[in-house]
């Protein structure tokens, strides 16, 4: 019954889609964004995942500036 599947089909599809659209975002960033969605997938309050994603983007841009 657990949705924790060894073979995470959704993540596989997401990473393949990044290649399809020739994304410049790093794989680690895409994986981190997916982890946020997995964590909150059954949470009715979508503002929580949204807040986490905002934070992730801020950190990503801050890292870019630091480099």
């Amino acid at each position, binding site marked *: *019954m*657990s*949705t*924790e*599947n*060894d073979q*995470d*089909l*959704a993540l*596989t*599809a*997401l990473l*393949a*889609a*990044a290649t*399809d*659209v020739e*994304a*410049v*975002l790093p794989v680690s960033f*895409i994986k981190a*964004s*997916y982890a*946020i*969605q*997995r964590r*909150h*997938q*059954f*949470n009715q309050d*979508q503002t929580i*995942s*949204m807040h986490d*994603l*905002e934070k992730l*983007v801020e950190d*990503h*841009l801050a890292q870019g500036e630091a480099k």
Partner: protein
Amino acid sequence: MKLLKLTATNFMPYKGTMSLSFPTSPEQNVMLVYGDNMRGKTSLLNALRWAFYGKALGRHSRELPLQDLINKEATLEGDWSMETCITFEDGGHSYEYRRRATKHALVSKPSRPEDFEISRGLLRDGIAINGYLIDAEISRFAPEQTSRFFLFDGELLQEYESLLIDGNEQGRKIKESIEQALGVPTLIKGREDAQTLLKSAQKQQTRDLEKISGMERQVDRQRVLQSEIETFERDIDDQEKQLKITKADRALLDDFIEATEQIHAAKVRLTANQENLFTNTQTQKDLEIQRLGLMRDAWKDFIRPQITLKRDHLTEENNKLAEAMIRKANIAGQIEQLKKSLDSAICHACGQALHQSQRELAGAELGRLEAMHLGIAVDEAARNRISAEIRDLDRLLKPGPTSQIKFCDKEISKLKVEQTKLDNEIERLHDQIKGQDTAEIARKRALRDGLIKIEGATEQSIRATKAKLDKNNKDLQMIAKALQGIPTARAAKSTQIMNVAGELERIYGRSIDRLRDDLKTRVEQFASDAFKALSTQAKYSGLRINNNYGLAILDERGHEVTIRSAGAEQIVALSLIDGLARAGRAAGPIVMDTPFGRLDPGHRANILKYLPTTTNQLILFVHEGEVARSHDLSQISSRIDSIYEIKEVSTRHSKIEKVRI
């Protein structure tokens, strides 16, 4: 997840406390609960559902009101409380989840869910979990959205046929559940979050650009587009909410209409019969009037023989008079000729001169004829009188009304028989709809038709607004692209966030299509494997999936089998459930209520052999007609952990007992 024990108190027909212990051994992972219809098999499924999610479902997956879940006998004795407790294991932790409903102290007889106080508690490894975290914890391993795939109501199997029909509302709901089970919403929510972030950054960019001279036109245009987008989104949201309400209202009306279909049909027949009865009685009245009119002339038929006789007699007299007149006229003609011959002494026939002797003979003949002429008496007045009498009699002898009266009698008789039948049918139909508010049924039918029209109009309106929204979004993207060429704009933080969010949105958007395609391929493969194991028809080569996850059976040449039996539908649905289970999640328990209803022994045997191998716990709620203990269980006897029986104590009270295998 592994279920360990279910305990329920005063839940539906189970008065007092009952408990079920689930199989825990991987080798003996099958449990059966036997019960006749109306004894409480579905209530057991609902006990599990209520234990996990606080709701129980009735027909068409409608939620049952809380006050109807408490055992009726217990409530009659004043006990308005019920409780469930489910214990299970997952990820190395043990859980105990307890839920209790009790009527509020100030309520004497609860009549709505609000009259109850509900409490619940989840223990993990004996430690209580905070109330606000319970749902999240349960969702980790048994999310409600996917529960139909492990708490499985066999009576709803036929719903899966709707997946084959595009645009079917039921099919859409199941498709959503399937995609929930397979993880698609995770990506959809990812795309939605990226979109929200993108919009927020776009607004910030507009504000940032205001400070840069020469950007006024772009700023104005962006602002207009953003404002319109917000309006469109609000409109779509409102309309979708309204559509949902309309559909829910319509579904309730559909249920009501389905339940009252027979009453409505009886009412329609009653109205038609009443109209027929009216026509019948009206026709009878018309025929009676016609008959009365005919009776006025009916006496003529009684004296017809005498009149005929009289007419014959008069005709004879008339003929005699006519003959006499003709004879007298002939003689008068001869007399005239002879008189001429005697006066001229020339024969009128040959033109020769008459001799004396011949003249004498002619004179004698003339005398004889004159005597004869005098002897024939012709009464002209009598003849006129007789002719007039014959004409009068002829009028009386015209075709009589008797045959028409007979026709009327026959028709009236037929109508009376029909009237009796109609009277009986009307009485029967009156009895059938007695006590039913047929006006209310008619009102709800009309209301349902009206709601269908509203649904169509709302859906059309949503489509139109979405098209406008798409156009505005494209226009905004064009502006964003143009701004990339302006260094000051490109450097703004809001633009950078927009770039990241925009790319993330594209990735998530593309991934949704990819995942759906991958899942369909996997589900089709797994379901085909299951179908081949379950079906007894060797010539079927597998299943083909459509965009809604509907499955078509393929024959040995790979062509779709267009006509499927009810049993075949059930096998396809079970194959889909198994395919979904294996494509989207790790093995867990499957609880099935009445899953073998339409299956023959061959298919039952295949399912009983196959399912225990694809799940860690198989719990079946069945009746003896579905799975016969005497012979159906022999091939899985080594797999069976326990068998229970539901026994009736009274119509409102069932108990459950473990039986020896």
